[in-house]
């Protein structure tokens, strides 16, 4: 996964949402126009409208993984469905590779979905009458690829997600984790650029969930898709995300890198989530390193600036001297002192905040 690189200006974001609103109800459009963009959920609710997404804007650059995190009813799934146009946004603009999604004809939309988009669902949404292989081949067959070719490609996908030997099983004969592997394989069968995942691991046991998250990271490491990932699990968001958008009542409360969200929660609501999060599991060495002081003698150990603190803490603390931190090009970019690592591991929250 690429790190939290800032969005470069010259490349166009793959997904771009500007002030997207989704309001359910009979005269949602009229009410939205009257409110001039200042949507108060209470007022709308009294008028019989339910606010799903309220003025959401974000961009996902190529190869980036944006996680939308929120509790149930926060509008995160609705936002995802707006971005894939499974529901039509009430107002706002959505661009996919610069192309206006909401202005697309039905035909163009189908074409886009057949070639560029893949989606994984919380309840797997496999077709019960098709076998594993047929399910995976389905998007290909819908496109018009013949049985022989589509089944052959589906077989490759089966291998990719590690389900070989179960090609001819029906979904009902598989465990939840296996079913979701099929769901993942199906969403990847057309080799999409954009990958939507709607709480893909929420319906799974914690152990299987962890395993599937690892599997997902492995796949993303190989495939490097542009991803919009929805979850209600903050830990999952921290583990996977390049950036996280935290939603509440349809509003994006904060959109930032995991480290920044943990270190600088923008609102009280976000802070509640971050309170219990062990910092060493989120923060990278970069956030606790000091600039290079030439007078200091560094240890022989070198750690990457992108390393999560938890993974290198033991090694760093084992050194008597400060440890050198290296960048992507193996150049020393700073030094990390064990005192700071101890702060992160055992220090009070105030201490962590002070440093920034």
């Amino acid at each position, binding site marked *: 996964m690429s790190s939290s690189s800032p969005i470069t200006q010259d490349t166009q974001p793959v997904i771009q949402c500007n002030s997207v609103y989704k309001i359910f109800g009979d005269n949602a459009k009229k009410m939205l126009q009257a409110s001039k963009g200042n949507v108060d959920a209470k007022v709308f609710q009294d008028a019989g409208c339910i606010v799903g997404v309220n003025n959401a804007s974000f961009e996902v650059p190529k190869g980036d993984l944006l996680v939308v995190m929120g509790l149930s009813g926060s509008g995160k799934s609705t936002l995802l*469905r707006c971005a*894939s146009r*499974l529901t039509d946004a009430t107002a706002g603009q959505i661009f996919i590779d610069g192309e206006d999604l909401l202005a697309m004809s039905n035909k163009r939309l*189908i*074409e*886009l*979905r*057949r*070639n560029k*988009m*893949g*989606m994984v*669902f*919380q*309840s*797997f*949404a*496999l*077709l*019960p*009458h*098709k*076998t594993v*292989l*047929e399910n995976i081949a*389905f*998007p290909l067959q*819908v*496109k018009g690829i013949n*049985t022989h070719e589509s*089944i052959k490609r589906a077989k490759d996908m089966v291998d990719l997600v590690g389900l070989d030997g179960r*090609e*001819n099983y*029906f979904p009902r004969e598989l465990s939840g984790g296996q079913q979701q592997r099929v*769901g993942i394989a*199906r*969403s990847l069968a*057309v080799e999409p650029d954009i990958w*939507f995942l709607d709480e893909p691991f929420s319906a799974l046991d914690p152990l299987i969930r962890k395993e599937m998250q690892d599997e997902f990271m492995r796949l993303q490491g190989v495939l490097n898709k542009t991803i919009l990932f929805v979850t209600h699990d903050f830990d999952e968001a921290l583990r996977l995300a390049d950036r996280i958008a935290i939603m509440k009542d349809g509003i994006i409360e904060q959109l930032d890198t995991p480290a920044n969200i943990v270190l600088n929660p923008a609102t009280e609501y976000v802070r509640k989530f971050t309170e219990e999060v062990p910092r060493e599991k989120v923060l990278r060495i970069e956030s606790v390193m000091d600039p290079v002081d030439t007078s200091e003698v560094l240890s022989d150990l070198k750690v990457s600036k992108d390393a999560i603190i938890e993974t290198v803490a033991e090694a760093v603390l084992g050194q008597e001297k400060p440890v050198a931190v290296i960048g992507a090009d193996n150049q020393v970019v700073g030094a990390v002192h064990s005192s700071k690592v101890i702060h992160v591991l055992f220090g009070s929250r105030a201490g962590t905040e002070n440093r920034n």
Partner: protein
Amino acid sequence: MCCLAAGLERKIGIDSRIMNQLTNHPKLIQFIGLLVIFSLLCFFIAPSETNVLWRFPSLLAGLPYLINDSVEYLMFDWWPIQVYDPEIEEFEEKPLILQVTRAISASILFLIGLIREIILGGFKTIVTFTSWDFVSENKWARWPALPWTVVAGGAILLGYKLQGKGLAMLAGFSTIYLAVFGQWEPSMQTLSFVLFAAPVSFILGLTLGIWAYKNRNVELTLNPFLNVMQIMPHFSYLVPVMVFFGIGDHAGAIATIIFATPPMVRLTVLGLKRVSPEVLEAGMMSGCSNFQLMYKVLIPTARRDLLIGVNQVIMQCLAMAVIASFIGAKGLGFNLLLSLNGLRIGEAIEQGICIVLIAVVLDRLSLAWANKKTDYFAELTFIKRHKYSLLFLVILVAGSVLAYVGTFIFREGYNYLYIVPHNKGITIKDTLQNGVDWIWDTFFFALKGFNVFLIQEILMPMKAAYLSMPVAATLVLTMGVGYIIGGIRSAAIVGGFILFIALTEWWDRALITMYLMSFAVIVASIIGVTVGTLCAQNAYTAKFILLVCDTFQTFPSFIYLIPVIMLFGVTDTSVCIAVIVYATVPATRYTVEGLRSVSPDLHDAGSMSGVNRLQRWIKIELPMSFPHMALGVNQTVVFALSMVIIGAMIGTDDLGQYILKALSDKNGTGNGLTLGLCVAFIGLAVDQVIRTWANERKKVLGLA
């Protein structure tokens, strides 16, 4: 003194407990009040012809005539068009509807004939494409029948391909039975009838269902029609169909289609609605076009419900086989009707078994067909890929050769290897008849005693009681029940239905139908709930009883008449018992389903609270499953009504008998339809009350 005070205290204690009960259950007070009003009305309204409150004047007596006139106008006067008549070589003015129905009739007749001749051989299809002269000049221009060995082989092969040995054996046994017992020709006639009517009903039902699914307004419009159509007795369709389409196989097929389509529509809508929204979205995200979404995602996912629909369609088609024979459909049904009319029970049993076998085989084949799967991996050779088609070719050739050889073996008379002619096979009808006679002789007094007891001690008093109700009292009672359970809306709906019946000239007949129905429903519910409860105690017995219910539901309804006539002859008892047996099936099924669906957590919670079995049943299972059981009673009412009307075939004096009479009346359309509506309205009134209650209750229990 002291004693008296204590007694008084106890009395007050009891009173206050009753008062508590009443204030806790306001509906109970309402019910008691309603019953008091009802009794008062019954007591004070004098039974005289002139008393309007005793019997309402038949204000709707003109309705049948109105219907007749409209139908006649529609058929013979409305929208005349110019039609070229080749015989007089001139254009003639003819009404549009008549032309349309004639055209439909002709094409249906052609299709049924085509299927029939593929199986049984013939020349009418060839005539359609050439001319009678051509056929009579060329003796060779005759489509040969498929030898029965080929059909049997094909059925076995199909059964094996779709499911395996078991189904193959069932199919083989059934087809061989049909052939050996000399019922081949009528069976194939019935089969060809079903092979036409079932697919048409399926496609029609599916199309309407999809339309209703996509368009809410269509669904709302269709709903009341479906309600009425599903509950209307089979017979009442026959008259209008006869008027529009005449008499014959095609008319039978149309009546069958009208009857078999509504459940298919229902189940299509239900099935499509039950598809999870995520599956729908998965289809959309896979880039399905609207068409692909419907045919590759929605319909296959809703397969379970659609299959139940197919199943229902096939069952309805076979159930109509006898009834359609009233308007000229040929086949087993017609023969069975003749046997029953002639009280040739042995023969009727043989024919009945044929119909049941066809029903069971078609039922199983259609279920198996939907569950088959393909293996993509086996690298198949041409022969393996087309194994079954090739095997069928082999069977075809072998069967034909066998039939040819048969011409040498059976030089005189019939070629048994080609087609076993009607009534020329083995028969055990005499044995069966002897058996029936033996039962009659042996148990005559017991049966007769039971018969007389039932009629004199239960049925007659009950019938008299129903007939002695003043119409005003009945109306108040039914509307009151509607009001207490479902408020003003239910009261108005129920009242409307009952008022319609009361204002026709058949109120007394309707009361008799209601009495037969309610007697049967009460008995069937008691049996069903008891049997269901006992069987639901254990997973195996539950599974077993559901299988039994499945099997019984596969039997076409009139089959139930055979054994009861056998035992009790042509009496009200026979009708009652047939109705009870038929109606017990849904009561049992819903009880088992309801009880088994109570969550195991609740069982555990009960066990940990220390309940015993009986307590668990009374305190946990029964309240939780009661709404579902109530829906079972609802089905029991529907089943009972339809059977009561079919019971008219063996003689009752209720609405059904009048519907049957309308069949032989030239102007029977109006009567038939109005009577049919009366029956349907009885069912719909009960349905309204029970369904409203069950839905409310389910909501309260958090089950809906």
